[in-house]
């Protein structure tokens, strides 16, 4: 059941993010209300294969790999763990698909849509901005499109997803309770680009 959403975790920071954006250098905004479903299943099991068939792509089996379908991004989160990200309102449909494909096999499907929100960071200054708080090597050769990583950004745990190596563009998945902190941190770190 798709339903109208209330208030996203960064609704109160919409302006902060917009104000921190610098045309031609940096664009910051929230991507709110995506459907997010946590999946745990043995990647070698028939269930994993069934799930691959059901969602239209095999579950990525390399650390940090992201698989895409028209509707879904599937992020590798651990050796038997994935995060499926879909459009707003699709969480129940994704869960149903996964649960059905899982069948009687051991695995878990949990709606975690509210758990994290997403900050999109785009523009030539993105990497530098992120580097101020993220120790991962974000160079195009090390962290390319459709790669993801769970790591720390400033003092918050995040999932980083490279959406586009060239522009470049990143999604930062952050726990809802940490989202304002992260937005404030990003604004502070981006402040120098406005002068």
């Amino acid at each position: 059941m798709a339903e109208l959403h209330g208030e996203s975790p960064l609704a109160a920071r919409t302006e902060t993010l917009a104000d921190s954006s610098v045309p031609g250098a940096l664009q910051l905004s929230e991507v709110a209300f995506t459907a997010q479903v946590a999946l745990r299943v043995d990647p070698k099991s028939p269930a994993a294969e069934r799930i691959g068939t059901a969602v239209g792509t095999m579950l990525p089996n390399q650390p940090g790999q992201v698989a895409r379908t028209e509707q879904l991004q599937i992020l590798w989160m651990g050796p038997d763990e994935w995060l499926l990200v879909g459009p707003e309102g699709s969480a129940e449909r994704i869960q149903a698909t996964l649960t059905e494909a899982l069948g009687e096999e051991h695995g878990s499907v949990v709606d975690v849509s509210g758990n994290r929100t997403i900050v999109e960071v785009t523009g030539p200054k993105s990497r530098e901005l992120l580097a101020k708080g993220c120790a991962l090597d974000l160079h195009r050769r090390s962290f390319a499109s459709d790669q993801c990583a769970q790591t720390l950004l400033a003092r918050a745990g995040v999932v980083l997803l490279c959406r586009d190596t060239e522009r470049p563009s990143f999604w930062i998945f952050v726990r809802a309770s940490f989202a304002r902190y992260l937005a404030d941190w990003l604004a502070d770190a981006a402040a120098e680009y406005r002068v």
Partner: protein
Amino acid sequence: MMLIPCPWCGPRNETEFHYGGQADVSYPAEPQQLSDADWARFLFYRANPKGIFTERWNHQAGCRRWFTIRRDTTTNEIFQDDSHEAVTR
């Protein structure tokens, strides 16, 4: 700032990890059958070698998996598998 090789996510800064101390300390099969002294050994006694230490880490900020590495407690060089060549520097 050690670079700790998570077997899944690859080398990451030590700040992403939580230390778990000595590896291979198994929970006793039948705790109720143990003497107090043996139970105390399980609870509180851990090896404390100066040199190579087989120890556990949890990739807390990453994939959340626990894993085991060997590390030299005098140099922080880390060894994987049975290799004598440090994987880090």
